[in-house]
């Protein structure tokens, strides 16, 4: 994807935002209002980060956490998307699943950690299940809502053209629901991160970004904690921009199913209305 001037401007604006936030933090850290050991300056955090990366430990922590996130997230998508779609298409499934989802949803995923530890012991099973639990509901609810907003004309037109159950689902309902599915993926991913860090603090033994933060607290290593937080933020940012942003750009934005925020009511692309009279 070649970067257009508009895209460079967007990157520039993002950098400005980050720089301003960093400057405010640095000013507070340098001011001496708080003890330096609790609010380390950015150069100190950067050195720590560099050390943690160069000896490989941070990469392993990030790898473990990311793996738990991806496995739990993937399971949540595989379970939540079809179930949400079924809920949107079938009153019986909706009637059965909705009360269950409504009751389970408000329970914070971390409240399950002690229960899951009792059931499954310490380790990856618990963290993955907690991620699955947290990521499942955004996927389910967004897909469920999305399927119910699919334009009935698409369904009518498709069935008039002979689309049956399978083709109808994959070629009409899924693409027709995609703006909601992408929102579901984003929210699920975000919830997965929130859950994994918490779960690692309580249930993981030696590896993971959540565990690093929790462990650093014992030794007053605020620089390690902030460095780990920066890594989490960085990974989240990269996924949002590279994965979800790209997915949105090559699908629903390109198809005109959603508008780019920068357009503010302007049309994404000029219509070819002037060419129309030619054809008639």
């Amino acid at each position: 994807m070649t970067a257009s001037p508009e895209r460079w401007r967007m990157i520039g604006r993002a950098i400005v935002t980050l720089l301003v936030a960093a400057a405010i933090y640095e000013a507070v850290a340098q001011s001496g209002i708080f003890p330096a050991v609790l609010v380390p300056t950015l150069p100190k955090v950067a050195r720590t980060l560099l050390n943690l990366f160069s000896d490989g430990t941070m990469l392993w922590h990030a790898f473990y956490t990311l793996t738990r996130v991806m496995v739990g997230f993937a399971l949540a998508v595989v379970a939540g998307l079809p179930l949400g779609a079924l809920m949107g298409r079938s009153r019986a499934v909706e009637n059965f699943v909705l009360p269950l989802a409504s009751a389970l949803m408000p329970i914070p995923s971390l409240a399950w950690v002690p229960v899951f530890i009792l059931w499954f012991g310490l380790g990856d099973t618990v963290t993955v299940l907690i991620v699955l639990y947290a990521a499942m509901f955004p996927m389910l609810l967004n897909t469920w809502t999305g399927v119910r907003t699919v334009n009935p004309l698409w369904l009518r037109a498709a069935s008039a053209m002979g689309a049956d159950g399978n083709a109808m689902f994959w070629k009409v309902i899924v693409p027709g629901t995609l703006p909601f599915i992408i929102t579901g993926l984003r929210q699920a991913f975000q919830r997965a991160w929130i859950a994994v860090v918490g779960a690692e603090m309580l249930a993981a033994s030696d590896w993971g970004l959540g565990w690093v933060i929790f462990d650093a607290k014992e030794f007053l290593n605020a620089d390690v904690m902030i460095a780990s937080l920066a890594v989490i933020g960085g990974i989240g940012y990269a996924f949002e921009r590279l994965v979800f942003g790209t997915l949105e750009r090559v699908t629903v934005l390109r198809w005109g199913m959603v508008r780019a925020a920068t357009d503010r009511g302007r049309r994404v692309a000029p219509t070819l209305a002037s060419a129309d009279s030619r054809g008639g």
Partner: protein
Amino acid sequence: MSDIEIRDVSLVYETPSGPMRAIERANVRIAASEFLCIVGPSGCGKSTLLNLVAGFLSPTSGEIKIDGEPVTGHGMDRGVVFQDFAQLFPWRTALGNVAFGLEMKGVGKEEREKIALSHLALVKLEKFAHSYPHHLSGGMQQRVAIARALAYNPSVLLMDEPFAALDALTRDAMQRLLAEVWRATRKTVVYVTHNVAEAVYLADRVVVMTPHPGRVKIELPVTLARPRDPLSVEFLQCQKDLLRHLGSETAAPDEPEICKDGAQP
């Protein structure tokens, strides 16, 4: 092409305020390759009747047959065009939309794209084959919808006010285009409209419906020669006759009924 028989068809909706007779004992026969327009005011059941023929609805009583076969649901012997531009799939290009029915039929990719392209050419949009619907104007989107409904070669084309949401100039151009397409393909067309001039321009025969309950009031043949001139005296007279039957204009008793009697074009 196929003939359609609508025999004694009634449709009753159950509503909270009691049964609503949407269609009452409709009887219409449509010959193969005929262009039939159904006109009437809002709520007369004209779209409902079309949806019954399309198989989206089932009659409470009576029967609809296409080529002697009773209609039991939607089928690929019928193509449907709706009023709303949003009927196209936004995630498919014009070509992808037109090829959809062929894809469902299991036609290979190369073959179906060739057929789809030829149908886009029929509605003069082959240059826009790779455009997504949101890049096309309303008139162009409706032309894609017509190409899409024709591409898998149904024998009947069902159209529910396809041009009602277009501006007047585009609508005139679209009517000319549709008349051409019909002449080229000789499909049996059932076309619902509330626009009297449109009906006179397009139809071999016009069915007038009245509301509460939805009934077929009268059928009028339009025998004007094609292509028709919407500004000719005969055309305007025909329009007047039709309007009179719609109850929105009272003609003088001594005026001849060109529509009914088939005066010379």
